[in-house]
């Protein structure tokens, strides 16, 4: 008796949509609130991740790989939309297609380009963007933060690899690096907003405000980095650089304690 009667509480009494009341939930009856990452920020994060890959890529074959991967990411976005509308089967199917797309992009990036160095850099970034997107769909609750972190790590590795192996220009490299940090920050923000406010709340101003601020700051940081480069300090000897890096480490540790 108890279970049935419980279902006929005030919320079940006059709701036409059968599961509408339980799905919305309020604070007290809150376990059913959908806590998935906020959509706007999640989209911005995935776009930033893709930009990070695009910025360091060059050559037609890499573009093809990125195109395939981007289609996969788009499909993952479709999964999220389908999930929001309660179309579970559609979400799973589109999600599988998305993962296949991203992996196809990774495969194309690893095989199509002519040289080994070119083969190495795009797949890593696409894999990172794919993991980030899976974390934000999210493919599984509780995995979001881990997937976003791992995805970001791969994106950064991709940028660093690109910097080492084929010496991309300063601006694309800086832009790619900034975009990967923005992707991580905005992705984490999406998860956090989703946790605190849930899916039904209107949160886009907060999401866009945060993403905009981080991007602006990143842009300013890139400008500063370019200015530093303009000073031509890269000519200093390695010992001096090591000292500089050591000082930077001490400063960072001091900042965080």
């Amino acid at each position: 008796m108890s279970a049935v009667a419980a279902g006929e509480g005030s919320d079940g009494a006059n709701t036409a949509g059968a599961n509408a009341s339980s799905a919305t939930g309020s604070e007290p009856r809150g376990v059913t609130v959908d806590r998935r990452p906020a959509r706007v920020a999640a989209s911005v994060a995935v776009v930033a991740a893709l930009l990070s890959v695009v910025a360091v890529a060059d050559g037609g074959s890499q573009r093809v790989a990125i195109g395939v991967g981007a289609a996969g990411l788009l499909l993952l976005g479709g999964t999220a939309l389908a999930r929001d509308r309660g179309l579970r089967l559609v979400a799973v199917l589109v999600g599988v297609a998305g993962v296949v797309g991203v992996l196809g992009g990774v495969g194309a990036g690893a095989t199509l380009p002519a040289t080994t160095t070119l083969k190495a850099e795009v797949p890593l970034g696409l894999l990172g963007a794919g993991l980030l997107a899976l974390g934000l769909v999210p493919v599984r609750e509780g995995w979001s933060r881990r997937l976003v972190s791992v995805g970001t790590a791969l994106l950064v590795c991709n940028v660093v690899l690109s910097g080492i192996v084929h010496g991309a220009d300063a601006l694309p490299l800086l832009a790619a690096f900034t975009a990967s940090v923005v992707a991580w920050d905005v992705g984490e923000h999406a998860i956090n907003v989703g946790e605190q406010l849930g899916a039904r709340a209107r949160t886009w101003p907060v999401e866009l405000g945060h993403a905009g601020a981080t991007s602006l700051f990143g842009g300013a940081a890139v400008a500063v980095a370019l200015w530093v480069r303009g000073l031509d300090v890269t000519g200093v000897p390695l010992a001096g650089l090591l000292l500089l890096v050591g000082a930077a480490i001490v400063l960072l540790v001091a900042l965080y304690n």
Partner: protein
Amino acid sequence: MTEVRTTRRWRGVVGIALFVGAVGVLAARPLLLLLGVVGSAFAAYPHLTGTPAVDLSLERSLGSRSPEQGDAVEVTVRVVNEGSTLADLRIVDGVPPMLAVQSGSPRHGAVLRPGDATEWSYTVGADYGRHQFDPATVVARDVAGAREVETTVAAETELAVTDSVPEVPLRQQTAGHAGRVVTDRGGSGIEFHQTREYQHGDPMSRIDWRRFARTNTLTTIEFREERTAAVVLCVDADASAYRARRDDEPNAVAYSVAGAEQLLTSLGDARTFVGLAALGREFAWVDPGSGREHRDRLRTTLATHPALRTVPPTDPDASWVDTDQRAALRRRLGPSNQLFLFSPLTDDGVVTTALELEAEGTRVTVVSPNVTSRETAGGRLATVERDGRMRRLRESGVPVVDWDPTDPLGTELLRQQERGVA
């Protein structure tokens, strides 16, 4: 209630900055060191922003002032920023625990410049009783998200569905008191109690005019107050009472508070003296009284007293109600009182209290919201234990109302009365 937290969400970027810098040095790539510059800038970013100062005001308006049971009531919330810019503001409105949100969300995110306002609405299903909205919880982050301030913004809003509560069947009051007790409190009555300085608003008939003629000072005469038998509504809010049938349903304390609210509403028309007590995180007590203002005071206490918070304790095995609280309750009650004790009967202490009070002459009626479930083994055990406690009470002459909280309490009370139990 304001709490400032450091989120530490930018910690990872220090690792990234060090990583790119280290690779740059090892691989002798100056460009990667430049990435280290950007990384360091991001590491410094959270230190460049300040802790947001939250100064908000909140207004709630209800689509319908006096809805019927089951109606969808639109709640519109408007929040105005009275302070500085808030770049990342998250608001969760304090929906009364007994009301379920039907559409929309009581949660909202906004970016507010000074003087800006944001407004949103959602609908709740109206349920029996008077429901006070809790203060809205506000979380404001600085633009980098490094620090967050959590606080609450209150606005008194009440949603009442009252017309469906029938009159409360009170127990017969016997023992020669005939419903009147002489108290030690001054007021209006017959027997002289004391004189005191005149206070603005004292009735003219109680002013000691002789003394005024003699000394030209106004004094007021107080008589011993005579009071009718008072009903005290007591909520058991011990840690063990915060049980719920399922996680997404209100707990027994929320039901008890709602039940007390329903009784209060129906007793309000009957000119009965009503008081309030709670055993829980702390002891709560409001002296019995009558009149509209007193009822409002009781309602406010029901909605706001910390002992009656409907948020479950973090440690469900805690026990807050000690002998001091029980003694405090017993001291204040006597043969002139009727006690409505709201308790899910989840432990033996409350049964003992009820029996002791009954033995001392207080007429006790236990109203027990049933939050047990037969779905699990633990639930079945709890059901058996509760049945045993109800039996013990009934054997000692204490009526127990076994209340299924999905029904209005009044209906249940009437049903019991027809059966001759209460």
